[in-house]
């Protein structure tokens, strides 16, 4: 019986020849990632459980990115970063990217890719639900809580239930003005926020393999919005080149067998896609932009691990170039590397940063910022009953701050077009 790519990687991690969905296995973890919200409690559980002699199983395999609550005066939030800082010092953790230094990276999932931690065929666990983002590199990656992370920190091992896989094939070529965000919103609308629970979402097809690394990460990033354990795309040459530029590690490429078993297969024609939004208050409350266009907005937000990558800003800049936004619009580069690129990349000879500033956007520093609301002084945080369109990944009640706010999720193109009119706008109508 054939295996899916997810099953093959888990079998390797469990030291077995094969695994079947539903089976519980103990895995050897290649990388454990944590951040400022879940790192401190993880460390405290690890200390409590392993006692005086607590030892990190493999220092090289632990990666810590403070990224969530960074530019805030909240004393508790700052204390959390302080905890990470002294932990890194006390235990000599090399892969710690401290705030306030030039090592600071920004949002963990993007930084993992940029810093060469995403390696095809490997197993990554992180204390963040969007750890599934790394699946764009043909690897198994998933989120866990603090207790599981503390267990990994001490042992390098964790149990996992082998998931059934769902296969999403996108044939053909994507029309212009359609991005990976529109693809994943369609999937969410079709299978709902529950449709992937304890399952793997595997993506393939011409339209997928024509996507850039950034765009692939948008797809796998939102696998968790369907409740999935992981999202995964087989690594191809585009991924291999990206990885080789950033890491010297050897890697193994895995592919799903032709006779691998899937719980269900979905086929989409890329050419039939149109811009989509997820309406308040759930990522699966999906509709076409055409059906909701005209909805008045109070704020636009382009940022996060989903929609704050370089490709997202390049898309947005093409609209914003030479135009003025009608409502406050926030540009939050996911990582400091992306922030630097904003000053280097140009559209018609003008840097992206300058384009955004000239169109009256607020360009913020790299962090999770208002993607998850955050402390009260977080830039871009939703206030009162604001109506926001955002490139982020969640619009549950209160996710971006105020419980009374309403958040629409959309592609960077749709958000940029909407910023220029102050109402939800189909990017195809605007051009």
């Amino acid at each position: 019986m054939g295996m899916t790519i997810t099953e093959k990687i888990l079998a390797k991690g469990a030291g077995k020849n094969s695994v079947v969905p539903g089976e519980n296995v103990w895995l050897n973890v290649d990388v454990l990632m944590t951040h400022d919200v879940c790192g401190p409690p993880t460390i405290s559980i690890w200390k409590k459980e392993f006692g005086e002699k607590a030892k990190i199983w493999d220092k090289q395999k632990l990666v810590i990115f403070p990224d969530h609550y960074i530019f805030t005066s909240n004393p508790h939030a700052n204390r959390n970063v302080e905890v990470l800082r002294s932990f890194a010092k006390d235990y000599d953790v090399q892969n710690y990217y401290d705030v306030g230094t030039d090592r600071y990276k920004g949002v963990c999932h993007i930084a993992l890719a940029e810093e060469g931690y995403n390696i095809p065929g490997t197993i990554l666990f992180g204390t963040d639900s969007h750890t599934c983002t790394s699946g764009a590199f043909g690897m198994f990656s998933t989120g866990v809580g603090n207790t599981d992370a503390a267990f990994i920190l001490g042992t390098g091992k964790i149990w996992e239930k082998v998931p059934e896989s769902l296969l999403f094939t996108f044939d053909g070529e994507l029309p212009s003005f359609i991005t990976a965000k529109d693809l994943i919103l369609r999937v969410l609308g079709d299978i709902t926020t529950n449709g992937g629970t304890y399952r793997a979402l595997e993506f393939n097809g011409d339209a997928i393999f024509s996507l850039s690394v950034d765009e692939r990460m948008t797809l796998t990033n939102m696998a968790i919005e369907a409740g999935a354990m992981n999202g995964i795309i087989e690594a191809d040459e585009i991924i291999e080149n990206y990885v080789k530029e950033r890491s010297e590690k050897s890697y193994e490429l895995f592919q799903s067998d032709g006779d691998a078993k899937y719980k269900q297969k979905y086929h989409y024609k890329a050419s039939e896609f149109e811009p989509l939004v997820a309406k308040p208050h759930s990522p699966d409350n999906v509709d076409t932009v055409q059906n909701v266009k005209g909805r008045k907005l109070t704020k636009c937000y382009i940022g996060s691990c989903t929609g704050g990558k370089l490709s997202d800003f390049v898309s947005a800049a093409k609209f914003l170039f030479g135009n003025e936004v009608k409502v406050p619009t926030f540009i939050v580069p996911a990582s400091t590397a992306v922030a630097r690129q904003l000053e280097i990349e140009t559209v018609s000879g003008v840097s992206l940063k300058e384009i955004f500033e000239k169109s009256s956007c607020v360009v913020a520093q790299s962090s999770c910022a208002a993607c998850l609301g955050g402390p009260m002084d977080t830039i871009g945080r939703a206030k009162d009953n604001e109506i926001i369109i955002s490139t982020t990944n969640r619009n549950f009640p209160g996710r971006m701050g105020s419980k009374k706010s309403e958040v629409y999720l959309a592609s960077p193109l749709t958000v940029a077009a909407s910023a220029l009119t102050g109402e939800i706008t189909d990017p195809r109508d605007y051009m």
Partner: protein
Amino acid sequence: MEKTIKGKAFVLGDNIDTDQIIPAEHLVYSMSDPKESQLYGKFALSSVPQKESGLPMGNIPFVKEGEEFSEYTIIIGGSNFGCGSSREHAPFALMKAGVKAVVAESFARIYYRNSVDGGFVIPYEAKEKLNDVISTDDEVEIMLNENKLINNTTQKVYALNPLGDILPIIEAGNLFEYARKSGMIA
């Protein structure tokens, strides 16, 4: 492990996500300091929209204004309970508020793992949708050995899915105790 869990039910809708269980702005408190960590209990379920808080009527605060504990020990949810972020603070907050078990039609994976591996609250899957048939303030009782839930207010009995593979972890207390018992760690 206790054999029965008894208490007042607090009923919620489908897709209760972790931001509703414990809003992100509260994730900064220490989880190990006994006093500070009680703040998680105080703010548990504080982002559930008012009209959906305590069904079927709604508008029932899970934790009363100014208090740190809830009078409810059993939560009855619908499908996909605990979806969203990986924050272990979610089942932790429910435990801190005094919750012993959540009975739902289905759970999101990370929430489910966190509940069990951290030893916070028991996540029990019901064989049918119970948030339509149980009301907030009903007196309910979970019989762990028999995998059933009795509603003492209505005298109805409902079957729960056996805890299966995770039972040994729940019985041990948490993942670490389980690993110690089975000799995986010292």
